[in-house]
């Protein structure tokens, strides 16, 4: 079949002149097309069907009537959401934790990468990297177990120190006032080291000539950091920042769920854990889907407006 040699345009994109050529391509490379089918079905089934299923946020979904039989209620669930004191409190928790994340968890890897970059002893740097990447691979249950043990009021490590100094022991997990600090700092412990990887990669791509030249001009290391290093990794910072605000309200179910108990849930509960208890366990399907949808829309709006602002200011953007 001579016709199967389809015409290749310059960019390597195949252009068909007629349906016959298209058919010939399908036939010749049918192995490729067959291979791709399971993956495409996967995305349609496990990603797109639930996405369509989100319409239940506008219904009074009844599991026996299904998506097509359930009554439509418009924006009722969204209105109900904002009348619930519980919801308002949990939304507030989620937002506060999100702001803490942005304020602490986000900049720390940058600072850490800059400090690591100043280390000249290769062995020291390698060893330290091995150590600080490691917590990233521990599960939240393990981290929760370690943290709860260390903070335990009876014989935890921290309280042993506190009592040996003559103070009363503190029940860290049993009070609302500590839970947010615990949630944010356990996240930093797990991922701050890991977060440096991408910045360290960006730092290695800086041309060393720049540093040499500025040294000739008498610039100090601090000056170099401000004038060379930071501007060089700014695009990476911008992109990661945009991605982060896209996930502004996704603090994470697993990391909160291990630390929650009845004594600290007042300030520790977030939307994801609320959706799990109210939606999955109490079966308020439509109401919690509305919350989930609300979360996604906020994320989308944030990432789009963030992108627009950043494009205007720095010329960097995700798309």
């Amino acid at each position, binding site marked *: 079949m001579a016709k199967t040699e389809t015409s290749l345009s310059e960019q390597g*994109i195949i252009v068909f002149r007629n349906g016959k050529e298209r058919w010939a391509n399908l036939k010749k490379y049918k192995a490729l097309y067959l291979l791709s089918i399971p993956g495409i079905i996967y995305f*349609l089934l496990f990603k797109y069907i639930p996405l369509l299923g989100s319409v239940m946020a506008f219904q009074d979904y009844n599991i026996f009537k299904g998506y097509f039989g359930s009554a439509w209620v418009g924006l009722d669930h969204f209105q109900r959401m904002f009348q619930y004191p519980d919801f308002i409190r949990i939304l507030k928790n989620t937002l506060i934790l999100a702001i803490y994340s942005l304020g602490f968890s986000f900049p720390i890897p940058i600072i850490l990468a800059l400090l690591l970059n100043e280390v000249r002893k290769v062995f*020291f740097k390698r060893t330290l990297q*091995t150590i600080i990447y490691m917590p990233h691979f521990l599960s939240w249950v393990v981290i929760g177990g370690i943290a709860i043990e260390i903070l335990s009021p009876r014989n935890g490590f921290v309280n042993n120190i506190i009592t040996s100094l003559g103070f009363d022991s503190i029940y860290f997990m049993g009070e609302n006032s500590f839970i947010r600090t615990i949630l944010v700092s356990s996240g930093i412990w797990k991922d701050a080291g890991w977060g440096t990887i991408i910045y360290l*990669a960006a730092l290695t791509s800086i041309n060393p000539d720049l540093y040499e030249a500025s040294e000739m001009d008498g610039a*100090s290391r601090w000056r170099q950091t401000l004038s060379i290093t930071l501007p060089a990794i700014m695009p990476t910072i911008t992109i990661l920042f945009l991605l982060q605000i896209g996930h502004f309200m996704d603090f994470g179910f697993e990391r909160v769920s291990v630390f929650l108990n009845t004594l600290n849930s007042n300030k520790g509960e977030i939307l994801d854990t609320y959706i799990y208890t109210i939606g999955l366990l109490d079966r308020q399907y439509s109401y919690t889907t509305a919350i*989930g949808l609300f979360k996604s829309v906020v994320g*989308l709006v944030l990432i789009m407006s963030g992108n627009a602002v950043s494009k205007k200011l720095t010329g960097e953007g995700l798309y």
Partner: protein
Amino acid sequence: MLRISTGQRWFNIVNYAFLIILGLSMILPIVHVLAQSLSSNTAINNGKVFFLPVDFTLSNFKAVVGEKLIWRSFGISVYVTAFGTFINLAMTAMLAYPLSRSEYVYRKPVLILVLLTMIFTAPLIPNFLLVKQLGLTDTLWSLMLPGAISAFNLFVMRSFFMALPVELIDSSRIDGCGEMRILWNIILPLSKPVMATIGIFYAVAHWNSYANALYFINNRQLYPLQVRLREFIITDSSSITAPAEEVLMSSPEGIKMAVVIIATIPIMLVYPFLQKHFTKGMMVGSVKS
């Protein structure tokens, strides 16, 4: 080297000191937990255990070893991690490979289809109802199928395939290889590094995850290790009772920490391999974004 100013020297001292403290803060909690799990009941209760076991004992581990449910959960986690990772790699490669070839003319629509799922994610309940309606709840499939392909890993693998020289494919086609043979005999053997990296990431995610099991599995007999461990930690009263001869030495805290150690050991075993690969993997990923 140019001369170093005093300010510079001070900065270096402070910097090294800070980084050492940081490194210790990441290691010592784990050392402490290990020490607890190997210490006797009285030593733990008197708050004597810091970084070395006091009254060294294996009672806590013996208590865990005698617990059938722990082993059952351990086995389930091993199964889900091994078989789940196999499904992940097979499904990801099967889609990534056609998407890397210019002969596959529907590249663009399929890529957009995948990309959109990274931006728009469905809420929990519709996902749960789908898994339920497919009859996967209370089966281990619910832990392996819903996350079979990670869009991010798909893109990483695709860019690896695209970086392989096209001439390889062309020449083997001239030699009469079919598409399947090209993939199986040429592409996959060359892709061992990317397969190892992505496979390890998938495997760690399977081993560590507990949310899916919490959502989709009610049958306690099917709980993976992380869910079982979470029960011990949250309920705060260990349901494990030590064998009679170990009761004196073991303690709820010690047993809990022994389970933590057991859940961590597999990760620690793969970590050296992991470390070799992940920096590379991250680079490929960052080039894309």
